[in-house]
């Protein structure tokens, strides 16, 4: 009781909580869940974009896309490391992802049938992610906040890159423009869903706000995203697929149409078009890599003087 109060006071003073600091179990659990989901999202998020690396339409785009997906892997690494400071191992988190127990962002359960999806993901999905993540750079938990600073910097580069792909398409041939519009049509609503349920439906939010893990409500962030994105779409000459979208002078924000929460829930439950394929791809990579990881361990045991693989790969 006393401890909780003191902890809250630290948080209120905007002091960073560090790994060895005492913290309430709920705070730790919330962070572990949130950082884990975030890390898993980076890893699963490699798949829909990875789908286009071998078919990217130019060398420049191929290299940029491969580098982007690599960055996502890197984000996964920092985030797993941040979660490890809370006493949960990467193996454990990986297990939870692979078994389907842990969640990842539902946005990655939609397929990427066209090249324009790569643009749309950069523009909208990374755009929405940044909206969510910028406040996390000031998260009360130090390691998470610091990881997010690096992540956000890269994400905003990705977002600009995605927007530039959309721009190229929108200024391209009729067919390219159509492709861009089609991608916007398919990604718009799922992007709005990335902010989670409406505030009226959202659980866990208040406590997270108190602890300064979260700083804005789902609806606030969604609104910010819409406000930022609508003029970008206009600039591209593309139409946002929401007939109810209009500027509201009174609220100084956009009113938008009803989000299809039934779809949102179905995808969260595992019934989106790609859920099973995503988990299967991750499980396959993991299972087929087992002998490699075992070999590395066995070899390291034989040569105790070898430096850890992680360190070397980071060089």
């Amino acid at each position, binding site marked *: 009781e006393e401890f909780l109060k003191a902890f809250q006071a630290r948080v209120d003073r905007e002091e960073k909580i560090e790994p060895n600091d005492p913290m309430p179990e709920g705070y730790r659990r919330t962070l572990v869940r949130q950082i884990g989901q975030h890390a898993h999202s980076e*890893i699963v998020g*490699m*798949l829909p974009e*990875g789908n286009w*690396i*071998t*078919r*990217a*339409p*130019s*060398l*420049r*785009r*191929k*290299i940029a896309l*491969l*580098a982007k*997906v*690599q960055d996502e*892997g*890197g984000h*996964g*690494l920092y985030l*797993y490391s941040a979660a490890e400071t809370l006493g949960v191992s990467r193996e454990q988190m990986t297990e939870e992802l692979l078994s389907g127990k842990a969640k990842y962002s539902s946005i990655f359960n939609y397929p990427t049938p066209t*090249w324009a999806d790569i643009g749309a993901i950069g523009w909208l999905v990374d755009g929405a992610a940044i909206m969510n993540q910028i406040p996390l750079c000031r998260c009360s938990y130090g390691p998470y906040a610091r990881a997010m600073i690096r992540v956000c910097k890269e994400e905003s580069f990705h977002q600009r890159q995605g927007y530039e*792909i959309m721009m*190229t398409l929108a200024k*391209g*041939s009729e*067919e*390219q423009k159509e492709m861009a519009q089609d991608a916007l049509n398919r990604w718009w609503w799922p992007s709005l869903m990335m902010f989670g349920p409406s505030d009226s439906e959202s659980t866990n939010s208040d406590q997270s706000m108190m602890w300064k893990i979260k700083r804005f409500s789902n609806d606030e962030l969604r609104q910010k995203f819409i406000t930022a994105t609508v003029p970008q779409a206009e600039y591209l000459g593309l139409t946002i697929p929401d007939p109810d979208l209009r500027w509201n002078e009174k609220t100084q924000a956009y009113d938008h149409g009803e989000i299809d929460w039934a779809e949102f829930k179905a995808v969260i439950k595992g019934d989106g078009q790609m859920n099973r394929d995503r988990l299967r*791809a991750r499980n*396959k*990579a*993991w299972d*087929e*890599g*087992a*002998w*490699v*990881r*075992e*070999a*590395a361990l*066995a*070899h*390291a045991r*034989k040569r105790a003087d070898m430096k850890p*693989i*992680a360190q*070397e*790969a*980071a*060089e």
Partner: protein
Amino acid sequence: MAAAVASAEDAVLRAILEIADDGLILGHRLSEWCGHAPMLEEELALANMGLDLLGQARALYAHAGALEGKGRTEDDFAFLRRERDYVNCLLVERDNRDFAHTMLRQLYFAAFMQPFWHATVQTSSDETLRGIAAKADKEMSYHLRHSGEWVIRMGDGTEESAARMADAVNELHRYTGELFMVSPARQQAIAAGLLPDPESLRDEWDETIATVFRAAKLELPEIRTMQKGGRDGIHGEDMGHLLAELQFMQRAYPGQTW
């Protein structure tokens, strides 16, 4: 078709395309791992190496286009040739198979290309090539170290990993001869002082491989006949499927800007 080389300029162009295609195709193969690597650190490492190779290919194609002077762009070279006009060696197009194959293929290639670029920096009469080589030399040093360490880990790891490494050696060693073969075009580029003679790099390659194999407890196989064909554009059957993907967008949407 891999046409006869008509002039000294053609020869140089062709010789540069050989190295550029090696980079493109091996870079493409490495990029196929994306999202499927055995551990996160290797996702990053494989992508790194793929990016290096694709970057080298890009610079080389641009240089080839400038030398040719007909306005062909890097993408024209990378995406709009016929299979028979790609002149990469067979080694780089071999499928990823498993991590053992992938890392051994990388070792074989890097053990040749690192000294190759190193010698190019020292001796090439072409300033642009020297510039490309200086960067590539450093990059390939990393590939060599990384793949060598993995070949050792897997060769001297578990029973399964050792068997897989031995299988990879059995499959891939016969493609290493082509690294040293000199096409007529290449011969002219060597004679003109643009590129080093592969023969001069053989001892170093042999020694690198021998050293790694010793540490990896792998045996050097006896190869009766080294495979060739890639430099004449006669590729294995995986190549067409690779190109169907690689070229898809450029073929399906010709003449557009991306």
